[in-house]
């Protein structure tokens, strides 16, 4: 027991040191662009992990999470640029706005039984958010997007992304830790029960739709945080963030990383962001690439990278005990 605790502590220290040193190493050896990519990976990781609360633990395949990501981003951007709120206030308000949108969409989506309806409704509703943001020119400036959002200088400076990196790393880690606690809590356990056996869950007196709705709203909340962080990184936002393909990308991250492993989506996010920067520098057919990856995952390894790694690891451990 003591030994595992010490290993845990050592791993924790190693991770902390690694993440502390990473931006400086990247800045020195490569360029600012790689620090920027790392920050992007962190934001997408938070988004993918919070999305996975719905996909992997709730067993609900949402095709509309871009709506929450985008709502978080737009709320933060509008509060900073239009209402000139202080940054912390905007950062706190954004996820609540996303959670409210999540409650509304979730209310309708979990109401009808059947995964088809859930998939169809989440996609349609997120498209409604897109349409509204796109057409409400007087508020959101439509497809021009909002540029030059005032972000305090201790986060975003023109010279370096390092401050941004640390700020976003801390906020994201905190959020991912909270999500981890939620997954491990009795609430998370009930969520998994509902996923695996809804009849039995009903039988022992669990109100399925309520739990699903709460999980959906929590997921929307943290997606909103990710969206707000995205604004702090980019200092601009456009309706592209609400596009249906963004929901597809986060879905692919969850699947690619492995939806039944808590940290799986982070692997997925890292792979996707790096591939995106690589692929889009050569070709404009990123969508084709996403589609092909989807097809491969569905046909050949539905458990994702994280699932494969975990299976290997478990097999290894088993061999040791025998």
């Amino acid at each position, binding site marked *: 027991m003591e030994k595992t605790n010490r290993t845990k502590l050592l791993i924790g220290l190693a991770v902390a040191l690694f993440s502390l040193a990473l931006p400086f190493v990247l800045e020195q050896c490569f360029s600012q662009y790689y620090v920027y990519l790392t920050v992007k990976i962190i934001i997408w990781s938070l988004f993918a992990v919070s999305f996975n609360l719905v996909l992997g633990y709730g067993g609900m395949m949402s095709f509309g999470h871009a709506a929450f990501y985008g709502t978080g981003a737009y709320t933060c951007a509008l509060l900073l640029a239009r209402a000139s709120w202080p940054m912390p206030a905007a950062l706190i308000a954004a996820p609540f706005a996303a959670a409210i949108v999540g409650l509304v969409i979730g209310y309708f989506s979990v109401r009808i039984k059947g995964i088809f309806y859930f998939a169809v409704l989440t996609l349609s509703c997120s498209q409604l958010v897109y349409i509204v943001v796109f057409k409400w020119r007087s508020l959101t400036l439509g497809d021009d997007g909002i540029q030059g959002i005032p972000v305090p200088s201790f986060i975003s400076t023109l010279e370096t992304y390092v401050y941004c990196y640390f700020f976003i790393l801390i906020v994201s880690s905190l959020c991912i830790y909270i999500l981890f606690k939620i997954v491990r809590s009795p609430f998370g356990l009930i969520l998994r029960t509902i996923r695996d056996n809804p009849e039995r869950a009903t039988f022992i007196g669990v109100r399925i739709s309520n739990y699903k709705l709460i999980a959906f709203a929590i997921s929307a909340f943290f997606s909103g945080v990710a969206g707000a962080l995205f604004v702090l990184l980019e200092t601009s936002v456009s309706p592209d963030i609400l596009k249906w393909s963004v929901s597809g990308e986060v879905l692919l991250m969850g699947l690619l990383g492995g939806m039944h492993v808590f940290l799986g989506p982070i692997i997925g996010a890292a792979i996707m962001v790096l591939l995106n920067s690589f692929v889009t520098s050569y070709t404009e057919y990123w*969508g084709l690439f996403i589609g092909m990856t989807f097809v491969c995952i*569905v046909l050949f390894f539905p458990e994702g990278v994280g699932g494969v790694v975990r299976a290997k690891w478990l097999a290894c451990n088993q061999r040791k005990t025998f």
Partner: protein
Amino acid sequence: MKRRGGRSLPRSTYTNRLQGNVTWAEYCTMELDFSNLFAQFISGLCRAMVLFLMASGLTIVFGVMRVVNFAHGSFYMLGAYLAYSLTQFYASSPSRFWVALIVAPTLVSLVGGLVEYVLLRRIYDKDHLLQILLTYALIFVLGDFIKMFWGVDLRIVSMPAALEGFITFFGNSFPLYYFFIIAIGVLVALSLLFILKITRFGKLMRASAEHREMVEMLGYNVRGIFTVVFMMAAWLGGLAGVVIAPTVRLSLGMDMEIIIECFLVVIIGGLGSIWGALLAALITGELYAFGILVLEKYAMTFIYGLAAVIIILRPAGLLGKQAH
């Protein structure tokens, strides 16, 4: 655009519409006086028929195969772009549109057959989530293939010469093409009724929707039936694309636009019910056409509102079977 008193839908407006200077919404709201309500009704009917063509394909596939085909909108877009290419290819011939009307849906249905045979067939016995994912992946793949072949520019398909005219009644003149669309919709609805109720294949289709194993035990090739059903749905999607092509600018986003509306239609009508799709298409088409008079930019929100009401009051849709 200046309004001209008395005469509605001036020819110049319509030409503008064809050249892509005026959007559908602007075109529909040129004249707001009371006599135009009838015009609104006709344009709503027109929209409803296109929606029905799309939603019937979506709902047939769901009813028989239990798969929601997310890529249905992509078949529609493919049909429209194929119509563009075919009319360009036969540019000198006066019957080019009719060639496109026959050939493009057939090609789309072949693509659909290929998709079913190569991809969907492998995962019928697996999790439904995987089937949804596969068709979802196709939106990306087909969308980018279309981008590859046709590029990102807006395309315009010219209207067939025979249908360029106008019909005047009740003091309003309507493009003849509207009535062509409505006729196609009615024709398709009747043919579907005929196929499903009377032909042997239709009976098999309905039987495999209810009891797949039973039909298999009777010695029928259910996999073959599924392929044909999927091809049929793709054909309907392609047909909708060709039919709509002369009235819109073809752009790469049109697959998502139509599929979202179709989803709302099948939610309102009940997923899996063809007559529900027809009823819901009529309601949504008219709701949109009249909604434009009230809230021009956000007319879609009425359809969302209706869908929300339906979900609360009658979750299985207007004509859908209540969940067991």
